């Protein structure tokens, strides 16, 4: 097996990987290789043909493929090395990256690895939805790929479970392409997606949204015939007597994304069970020396603009690591209260605190975020409204964390 040394191996040629590559190149790090399993760069953006991408970064509303092309054309122009049709089989904790492609099996010995594999979708099986197993049940991303990339129409009478942005986008997509979207059901008492998508994807097409509802049974032996939907209580348990049968031939599941970290596990990278992504420090370095994590593989983002920004920041750290041989220790652990699901990063350095991304557990209004170290208030910010669907960022001032004690982040109304 051929063995090649590399300064940086980037696993994934989607928005995170591309942004990291371009920033590294800009910073003078040229011995990079992007490894992409598809035949084209761009990642999931290739199938996100709707607009709304790049509002922050480019002040334009691009479609997914257009946003991706802004990076791809630069990568090609600068001749930044990349290989498509290349599947990373494993990454070791010594940063040996094994790759399979039509050209053969190659082992890259990398000084640094950037894990940018994106995420996968939660499936029906993982939800343990009871009932039969007919054809006609698709996760939203799969439905999107079939319709937008493969020219295959998945059904005629559709029910969407989950009001996250992907489910909402697909409700509109399906309607535009001639399907009848019967309803969207959401288990939470509030929508998971952004208001503007509720407006433009559901209200525009008179598609009803039922909150606090979920699918409790699936009917149909060969192809889906219908679903039973029930109202749920505060503990998300179906309420007896509220069952309603809906005739439908297609069920689209938009019930959650999980960062894809099989390769991170193979490298013994420690994961945060709250994000299902790697535990990282302020430099985006994981628990394994020289392995960094960015993008949806690290934590599920809502705006690709922030994915690119995050990847660029990580690239600066990768450069610093290559130049200095190591990065400063990040021994300040971040603790969160019950209102915050997670923060990324999970550990800070007292000099390079930087940005902190976080998500709230449930919608809050007029909330005050406090960052406290050993009883001392380090930072506070108020948020008029804050919802789980929108990842928030705060910028911690530099050099205010004086000691290596844990930091507590809390959110109160």
């Amino acid at each position, binding site marked *: *097996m051929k063995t090649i040394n590399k300064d940086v191996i980037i696993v994934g040629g989607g928005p995170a990987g591309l942004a990291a590559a371009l920033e590294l190149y800009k910073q003078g790090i040229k011995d990079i290789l992007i490894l992409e399993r598809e035949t084209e760069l761009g990642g999931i953006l290739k199938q996100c043909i709707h607009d709304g991408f790049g509002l922050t970064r480019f002040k334009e509303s691009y479609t997914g493929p257009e946003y991706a092309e802004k990076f791809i054309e630069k990568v090609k122009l600068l001749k930044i090395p990349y290989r498509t049709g290349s599947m990373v089989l494993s990454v070791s904790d010594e940063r040996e990256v094994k790759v399979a492609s*039509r*050209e053969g099996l190659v082992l890259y010995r990398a000084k640094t690895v950037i894990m940018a594999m994106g995420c*996968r979708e939660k499936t029906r099986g993982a939800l343990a939805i009871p009932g039969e*197993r007919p054809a006609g049940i698709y996760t939203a991303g799969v439905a999107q790929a079939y319709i937008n990339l493969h020219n295959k129409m998945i059904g005629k009478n559709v029910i969407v479970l989950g009001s996250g942005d992907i489910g909402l986008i697909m409700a509109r997509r399906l309607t535009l392409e001639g399907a009848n979207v019967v309803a969207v059901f959401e288990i939470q008492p509030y929508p998971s997606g952004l208001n503007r998508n509720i407006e433009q994807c559901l209200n525009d097409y008179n598609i009803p949204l039922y909150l606090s509802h979920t699918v409790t049974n699936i009917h149909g*032996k060969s192809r889906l015939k219908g679903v039973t939907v029930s109202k749920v209580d505060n503990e998300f348990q179906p309420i007896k007597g509220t069952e309603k049968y809906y005739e439908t031939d297609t069920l689209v599941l938009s019930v959650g994304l999980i960062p894809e970290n099989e390769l991170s596990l193979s490298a013994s990278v420690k994961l945060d069970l709250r994000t299902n992504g790697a535990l990282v420090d302020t430099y985006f370095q994981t628990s394994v020396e020289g392995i960094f994590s960015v993008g949806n593989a690290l934590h599920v983002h809502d705006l690709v603009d922030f994915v690119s920004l995050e990847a660029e920041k990580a690239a600066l750290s990768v450069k610093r690591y290559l130049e200095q041989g190591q990065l400063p220790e990040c021994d300040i652990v971040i603790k969160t209260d019950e209102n915050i699901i997670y923060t990324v990063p999970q550990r800070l350095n007292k000099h390079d605190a930087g940005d902190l991304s976080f998500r709230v557990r449930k919608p809050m209004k007029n909330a005050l975020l406090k960052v406290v170290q050993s009883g001392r208030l380090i930072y506070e910010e108020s948020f008029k409204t804050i919802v789980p669907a929108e990842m928030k960022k705060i910028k911690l001032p530099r050099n205010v964390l004086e000691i290596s004690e844990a930091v507590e982040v809390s959110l109160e109304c």
Partner: protein
Amino acid sequence: MYDVIIIGAGVVGSAIARELSRYQLKIGVLEKNLDVCNEGSGRNSAVIHGGFAYDPGSNKAKFCVEGCLGFKELAEELDIPFRQTGKVLVGNTEEDYQHLLKTIETGRVNGSIGLRMLDKEELANMLPSVIGEFAMYSPLSGIVDPFIYTIALAENATTNGVDYFFNQEVTSISRNSAHMHTIQTTKEVFETKWVINCAGLNCVAISEMLGIAGYEIGFTKGDYIVLDNKVGSLLPMPVYPVPSRTYMGIHVTPTIDGNVTVGPNANNVEDKSNYGVSKIHMDQLAEDAITLWPHIHKKDYIRNYAGIQPTWIDKEGLIKDYVIEVNDKYANVVNLIGIESPALTSAVPIARHVVGLISEKEDLKKNLEFNPSRKGIVKFSDQPDTVKASLIEKNPDYGEIVCRCEMVSKAEILEAIHNPLGVDTMLGIKYRTRAMMGRCQGGYCQMKIAAMIEEEKDKHVTELMHGRQNSNLFTGKVK
């Protein structure tokens, strides 16, 4: 004109097809579904049983023990994924202990080999994750891939000259004065001398078409939960609680792919085609099994399934033995009724018995071309790096990984699409390659696989099937 038509391409029908292909006979298999192994054969615990759970002298005991003892060799011959893991029956009370002693004795009488008791310490050493005071250990029990097992039997039968017909449900059978049969299916008419009823859940319906009335079967449904393979390493062998008279108990069983199944329960049902699993049952399975093996958590559920077995029950509700009969009044027929668990283990011995019954009436001549070996699709992911590299060099399609989670290459998917039985459903490809069986359940690769089936088999988008008839994946093109 066929010499033998076998109705049903499950593990038993396919085993019989293969055994008969050792002789110079024109053999056909009629299957109502689009692939083999769609019903009972593919919906079970996937365990090769030791044979101690059955009444001495019964068909079940005889065939199960024979099947267990010969399975390792069969698996090698047909390239079937099989692991002789051993199995334990775990007990806690004095009553359990006595039951297990009796079971060992029954096993001994039946011919099972190596059964012995384990005390608490031995059990804890062998299975630290299991809760129990003592256990009976069956060293020759094992776990198998039931799909590849049935597919292997069918493919080998096909290689040796058997014709398989899919999407053909038998609707009527008539017999002339010379005891030659005419079988009408939903598509064609077949003329044959012998008819072998391997119709499983529909065995009584076929039996009645053959004029053999009077059999009644019940349908016993078992539900299973499948757990993520990250808990697989905690369960090296099937673990059963001490059984009752009517069913095995809520087992936890490792699968050949490294997952764990929890189940089955056993409920009588009316609808033999409803494989839906209810939430209540899933909760009950978990609640029950967790007292035996505590690593059952909702976050590790990846899917669930159910199986339904044809149980020949008498008026007292007791499960009876296999019926495998010939009768001069209904000449040229072998009738199989109630072939439920342990049919997976017993399939080849049953088949040999059936051949024996036919040989009493026919002068069977050996097929000198018979080749008992069958090689499956080489699994890229299982090979060491040197072999992986050389596979890619010889065929670059091995370097193109289609299913990321199970690391299945394009070469394997193509081989599966062009399988000897001519099956081209998504599930057909799934069972032959493990693609779409991993964590993302086809979220990444199903689109590519659908496109490959479309192109390789020159199908229209509306002809792509998930698994069953009319399980259309798509309504048409978007544009």
